[in-house]
């Protein structure tokens, strides 16, 4: 019987070149459905979705000029066979790169509620960059950027027809998106689901994380992470009640639920 070594996932405080971490007190939001919130509270795990499962087909893609540059550089040195292998490798990377997305903003956003279809039964977690980094497992060793490292940084919105970036950096395609996504002003926590994690999950070894075809759920200190839970101002009264009741039944303080500033009455 083969022994599977269980890998570890942890926030890497050593900044990776590809990631730009905003100041610690930057407010971040995650808009989600009630079941997803309850799952986070119950499992105490934050879900990182595989990039291949995102709607944007450009996740993991390199800009056109980068591709041209690559072609001109590589064609002189490596065969077409090797080049297509590299391309396939980059594409395969999409299903190992796992991402937890957050929205950076000081205020609640009406657009985010609408965008994710959460106007009726939606909640939002309010947190900060600092809270997110503290909530993730701590990296045991200093100065090591190895497998299992979780990096955090903001997404750069660029023009994919003109921009160029270092193609040898495998994380770069995952912190860049097209300009059309600028309104998302996204912050991402990114990690690579390594082969050992998949093997550990498949062989039934108990791990602190959970790997599925959709992504990986990584242990998180929920209390450190969540500053407040906001309910869509457009949600009906019963939804507010059931959110508070379920949070309480799952053993958390219902006072975590804050009244949305958007629910205030207008003065004419």
């Amino acid at each position: 019987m083969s022994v599977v070594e269980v890998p570890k996932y942890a926030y890497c405080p050593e900044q990776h070149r590809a990631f730009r971490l905003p100041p610690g007190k930057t407010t971040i939001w995650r808009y989600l459905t009630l079941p997803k919130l309850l799952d986070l509270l119950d499992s105490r795990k934050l879900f990182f979705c595989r990039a291949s499962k995102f709607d944007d087909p450009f996740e993991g893609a390199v800009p056109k000029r980068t591709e041209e540059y690559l072609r001109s550089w590589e064609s002189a040195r490596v065969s077409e066979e090797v080049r297509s292998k590299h391309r396939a490798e980059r594409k395969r990377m999409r299903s190992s790169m796992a991402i937890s997305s957050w929205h950076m903003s000081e205020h609640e956003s009406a657009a985010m509620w609408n965008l994710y279809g959460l106007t009726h039964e939606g909640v939002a977690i309010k947190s900060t960059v600092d809270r997110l980094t503290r909530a993730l497992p701590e990296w045991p060793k200093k100065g090591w950027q190895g497998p299992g490292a979780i990096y955090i940084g903001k997404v750069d919105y660029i023009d994919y027809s003109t921009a160029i970036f270092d193609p040898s950096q495998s994380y770069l395609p995952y912190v860049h998106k097209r300009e059309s996504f600028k309104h998302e002003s996204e912050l991402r926590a990114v990690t690579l689901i390594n082969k050992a994690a998949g093997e550990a999950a498949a062989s039934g070894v108990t791990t602190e994380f959970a790997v599925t075809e959709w992504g990986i759920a990584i242990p998180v200190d929920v209390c450190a992470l969540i500053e407040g839970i906001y309910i869509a101002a457009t949600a009906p009264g019963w939804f507010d009640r059931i959110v508070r009741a379920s949070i309480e039944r799952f053993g958390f303080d219902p006072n975590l639920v804050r009244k949305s500033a958007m629910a205030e009455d207008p003065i004419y």
Partner: protein
Amino acid sequence: MTNVVAAPYYVSMSPKYTYWANNHSGFVLPAATTIIWRYMTLARFLELVRSRRLFFCRASKLEDRFEGSIPRVVNATLETWSAQYPFMDASDQMRNERIKNRDMFAINCWHVSDYESLAMWNQYGGTEGVAIRSSVERLTRALTRRLQRDDHLWHEIYVGRVNYIDYAVDEFPRGDPLAPFIYKRKCYEHEKELRAVTPISHSAELAKFSRWPTEFELNDIGIAIPVELSTLIEAIHVSPTAQGWFEGLVKESVERFGFDSAPVVKSSLVEEPNY
């Protein structure tokens, strides 16, 4: 010693709602063993489990503008009839009454089928949804109340299958204020709907207004009526498009809310096909 004055007087002043077996015309109750389903989001389901009340939505808040309306033929007959009495303005009065009834009648909808329906999952359940499996007998029994001698204010809940008709040519029972709520247009036939319908009485509005303790909950959208959950729910089916974590969460939350009389089961639609 302080005298504790019990509330029953006030309680009896606020109405009770109960299933009424003597059906109104138009309400045809299917066989007791008929299987019925209610598809909903997890949030709605948990609210049912928490409150132990079934929500009846005012007809005016339902999507179909034809709720509470009458077919063309019935309308023509009524117009001809009222034309004989021009001084009475009867047809307008009746029309206003029917429009008002859209706010006064509340409806709880179910889907009649022996099997799960993919269309219903898509429309009402979604990927993070559940479906309650019940039967006509379970629903009527769960809504039946043992009325006390001093319960002089109570209101009937009628249960029946929706009749799908052509509003341009077909007829339905005239002079029955409930009839407009048990007939729908043919374009809704695929919903194979069974409904429980009840009037939201004036006394219910009054009870809410005067803050008497009531068993139901009344708001702009409708009324939530007490229901016996263990009788009502035979099984809780999990959406076929849900990911693995969701089934676990449904089980966990049902348990956290202290409900254990019905099993949480996977959708039958996710079975592996044999080629």
